[in-house]
């Protein structure tokens, strides 16, 4: 028997290798490699484009497919462990119709993954945007379950979570503030981005640290076969990217930059206060990779972006992220691989005020030093094991104020230090042809460490200086407070038939950092605070169930998901309390719970002349916090009962295409006044403090269009195209805000010098709309040698 077992075992071989893109030689993440006759035998390529699985000795037809690329079919005779690399061609417009009748990925149905959205960068670039600026975050806001705080803001609110509950990673490096110009644009230069994937639920054990979503953005590696330059000139910014092969097939370098020139237009403003400002941002991305062999690759990527604002010599204000990520990918053998990633992330801002008598400098920042080790072990045909560890050292420097002026004393808010660690293991398990699971567990911990001084307050009394009973002082490295806990993750997929499946998932997440703000959209000056002696980590649980169905040979994808999410230790900040320069931040905090639930509908067409999707979300998000609204439940501002997006692209010909989107959403939940009174000679509104966000802004809807014409055939070395886009085509005056103020002569612009004597002065509701119809034009090009 032993001999027989040994013989049978000896006849199992491993087929492994990389799936890469033809031309650039970049690895494709999530490409599926399967036995064509037994699709259950196979797997999706990992973050490096690597795949590996076992098959018994024999002859096979392997099918390799990836969305947006031509499927490749290869016959093999497996008589030993075999390494096969696949190079896939990107689909061009000319051949799209062929693909409609060909074979396409059924990942929507067959994968265990749910509540996950992946957007091709090509698709993102085709979506019409304001000023023609391609924006990854705003594109994600068109997907079900992901909403925006308001027009022009790039904060994401995923399944009822706040914007600080999203872990945004660029090549595994955390981006703490992903927006430029207060959120009008996001920091990701689309030319430098390879793939965008967001997990809204069913989050794998590999990921942690945030409650609501994981946004994993991968930078392009750069072409290691030929020199490529690409870029664009737009209304408010220009971009340039170069890809340089260092050693053919082994190494390349990508450099990409973007700079806005909105400040040049300010010079034409009538208002002197606007004319004399500095107002721009820039981004710089770079990535270097070197392939020592098929078993060892090194990637070094960096991002540096900054916003610069200023008014004459009176003040300057700047902020930005700088991140550096170094990844070593090592294959121990065909079945075991390790990604070791070392990350440095920094976000900082600074004010420089030079006014007479009160000049000062204000600097603030936070840093993260992050080490990750992620193993993939292809255990056998049915089990793919993922395990690893993660350690982060956090430094928070909330404020350092210095002044040469004797009136102002130098002031430092106490720095905070913390160590966050995690261990995880998960298994992707094909139980039968119909049933697959991914189950895992993550243990995360967080230690707030010294130096620190902690105020301890009388038991049962409000945390306030008057109720302090002692101050505990901690030396450098002392543990001030330790939190830790398990985070189970389970996903299950049942194939109803070859075209449809039912999926369900559960995940628990723990979040140890949050942004201290009561506003919905963030300022760059918002303060990140760690869990500490008083403030507990936020714990979030989510269950989701969904039905997935593909039609017409996978040309159409349909999904319907429903979720329920509940959070503990959610904080809100008490009105009137200082958050920014408060050394006792716990005195400003109130804790409570939050919950959200909803249903998401997605119908998508990925191939053909007309592509796009229709997404609809029906949801509710509420919070209940002691000390806010008399402790009664209230809607989050970003609660929207209905949120709908229609995104379409159509190719009229090889060169001419049109794309458009239409968005509709229920108005945001807001607090309107219930009366008014006079105080200090001022009219002031009165609110019922027992109600929060009990009124609604008017509904939001908008249509955008873009027309792109390729100026020559794609087969040329120099390709260029021109895009005309129209934001808010029918000039809908969507409300950005509603202010309650006295208006003279029924004219919100009233100025006595311009409009004559005042004849009336009445209380009114004044709506501010940010953008009417905005036409723009962009020219894009690419050149390869």
């Amino acid at each position, binding site marked *: 028997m032993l001999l027989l077992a040994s013989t049978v075992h000896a006849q199992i071989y491993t087929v492994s290798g990389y799936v890469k893109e033809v031309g650039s030689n970049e690895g494709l993440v999530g490409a599926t490699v399967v036995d064509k006759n037994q699709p259950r035998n196979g797997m999706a390529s990992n973050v490096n484009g690597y795949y590996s699985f076992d098959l018994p000795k024999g002859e096979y037809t392997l099918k390799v497919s990836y969305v947006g690329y031509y499927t490749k079919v290869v016959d093999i005779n497996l008589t030993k462990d075999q390494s096969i690399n696949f190079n896939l061609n990107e689909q061009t417009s000319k051949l799209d119709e062929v693909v409609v009748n060909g074979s396409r990925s059924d990942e929507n149905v067959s994968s265990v993954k749910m509540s996950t959205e992946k957007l091709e960068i090509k698709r993102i670039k085709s979506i019409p945007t304001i000023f023609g600026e391609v924006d990854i975050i705003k594109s994600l806001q068109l997907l079900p379950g992901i909403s925006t705080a308001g027009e022009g803001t790039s904060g994401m609110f995923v399944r009822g979570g706040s914007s600080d509950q999203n872990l945004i990673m660029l090549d595994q490096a955390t981006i703490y503030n992903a927006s430029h110009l207060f959120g009008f644009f996001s920091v990701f230069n689309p030319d430098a981005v390879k793939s965008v994937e967001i997990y809204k639920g069913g989050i794998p054990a590999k990921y942690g640290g945030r409650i609501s979503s994981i946004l994993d953005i991968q930078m392009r590696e750069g072409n290691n076969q030929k020199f490529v330059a690409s870029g664009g000139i737009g209304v408010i910014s220009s971009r340039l990217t170069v890809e340089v092969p260092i050693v053919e097939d082994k190494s390349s370098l990508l450099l990409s930059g973007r700079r806005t020139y909105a400040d040049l237009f300010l010079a034409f403003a009538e208002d002197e206060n606007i004319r004399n400002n500095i107002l721009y941002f820039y981004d710089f991305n770079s990535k270097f990779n070197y392939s020592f062999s098929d078993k060892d690759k090194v990637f070094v990527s960096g991002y540096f972006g900054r916003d610069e604002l200023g008014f004459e010599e009176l003040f300057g204000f700047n902020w930005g992220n700088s991140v550096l990520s170094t990844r070593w990918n090592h294959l121990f053998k065909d079945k075991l691989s390790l990604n070791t990633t070392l990350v440095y992330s920094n976000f900082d801002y600074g004010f420089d*005020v030079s006014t007479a008598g009160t000049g000062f400098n204000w600097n603030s920042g936070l840093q993260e030093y992050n080490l990750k080790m992620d193993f993939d072990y292809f255990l056998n045909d049915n089990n793919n094991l993922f395990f690893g560890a993660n350690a982060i050292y956090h430094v928070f420097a909330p404020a350092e104020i210095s002044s040469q002026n004797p009136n102002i004393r130098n*002031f430092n808010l106490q720095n905070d230090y913390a160590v966050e660690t995690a261990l995880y293991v998960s298994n992707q398990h094909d139980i039968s042809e119909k049933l697959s699971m991914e189950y895992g567990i993550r243990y995360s911990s967080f230690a707030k460490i010294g130096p620190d001084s902690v105020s301890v307050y009388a038991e049962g009394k409000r945390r306030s200086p008057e109720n302090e009973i002692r101050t505990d002082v901690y030396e450098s490295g002392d543990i001030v407070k330790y939190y830790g806990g398990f985070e189970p993750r389970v996903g299950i997929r049942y194939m109803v038939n070859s075209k449809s499946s039912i999926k369900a998932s559960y995940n628990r997440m723990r979040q140890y950092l949050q942004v201290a703000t009561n506003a919905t959209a963030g300022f760059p000056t918002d303060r990140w605070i760690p869990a500490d002696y008083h403030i507990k980590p936020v714990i979030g649980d989510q269950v989701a169930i969904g039905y997935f169905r593909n039609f017409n040979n996978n040309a159409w994808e349909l999904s319907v998901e429903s979720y329920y999410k509940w959070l503990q230790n959610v904080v809100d900040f008490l*009105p*009137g309390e200082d958050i920014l320069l408060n050394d006792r931040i716990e005195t400003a905090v109130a804790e409570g719970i939050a919950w959200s639930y909803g249903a998401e509908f997605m119908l998508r067409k990925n191939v053909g002349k007309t592509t796009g999707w229709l997404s609809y979300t029906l949801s509710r998000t509420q919070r209940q916090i002691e000390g806010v609204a008399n402790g009664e439940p209230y809607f989050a501002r970003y609660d929207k009962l209905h949120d709908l997006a229609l995104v379409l692209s159509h190719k009229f010909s090889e060169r001419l295409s049109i794309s458009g989107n239409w968005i509709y959403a229920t108005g945001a939940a807001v607090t309107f006044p219930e*009366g008014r009174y006079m105080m200090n000679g001022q009219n002031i509104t*009165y609110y019922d403090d027992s109600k929060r966000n009990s009124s609604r802004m008017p509904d939001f809807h908008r249509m955008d269009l873009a027309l792109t014409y390729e100026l020559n055939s794609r087969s040329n070395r120099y390709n260029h195209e021109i895009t005309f886009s129209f934001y808010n085509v029918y000039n809908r005056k969507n409300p950005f805000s509603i202010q309650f103020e006295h208006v003279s002569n029924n004219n919100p612009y009233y100025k006595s010098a311009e409009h004559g004597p005042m004849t009336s002065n009445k209380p009114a509701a004044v709506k*501010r*709309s940010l953008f009417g119809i905005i036409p723009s034009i962009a020219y894009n090009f690419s050149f390869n040698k």
Partner: protein
Amino acid sequence: MRTHRNKILSLILAILISWSCVEIIDLELPQSDLELVIEGKLLNEESLQTIKISESLNYYDSSELAPFKDAEVNLMDHQHNIIESFIYSHEDSLYRSASPIKLAVGKEYVLQIEAKGEILEAKGKIFENATLDSLFYLSAEELKSIGKPVFGDGYFMFVNGELNNQGIEYFKLDVTVNGYFRNGKNDFTNSILTSEYFGRKFQALPIPGSFEEEDAVVLELYSINKDVYQYFDEFRNLFANDGGVFSPPPVNPTSNIKNLTNPDNKPLGYIQFSSVQRRNIKIEERD
């Protein structure tokens, strides 16, 4: 410091949304019961001290606030002994002390109001005011020439002096120019001061706003209690709240007046206990 930061952020935000447009809309608003509104300033100078009590209006009601005439108002010492009873005056719709009185620096007082069957109470101490040694002014050109830029044109006023109490002190600075009290939103925002980030002595500390030649300026500096400062601070936050995504949900400023009968039914407004000092200065043409 925070005020500076908030002003800068507001200015930048104003630039970013400078192309936006505004219009009056019809919006149905919820209505609640009328609330008591109380505003009072009790000073360390011999005068008829006054308290104003009125009722709030529905938002779109454009009439004047109706005075509340049926209250009983008493000024007490910290042990609740009545010092003075206030009488409603139909002439100016204010409650006035029966005779001129002066609150003493360093002492604590209680103002008690009985209205609508409920007892309301505010407590406060009269703190010693700061010492203002000297006032001077410079033109924008002069300031630029010495490397001290300022917003706008005209003349800018500065003060030298020192603080007289331990710990953080709070002030309200009212500026009247040629008989007009500067009371716009920005003026109010700039008038609330804290010594939190300042040293005990101050040199060339700027007075908010700019002035023109021949302006007759009256400065009134009030020492205020922390809870009244907190009220004013929340008040100016409410001013700055535009109801947009960058603003927190609006709430009523926290009054320093407690409702002893029904703590959840808080009145609107504040009672300020202050010492005050005044300075007059005329901006004269410079050579």
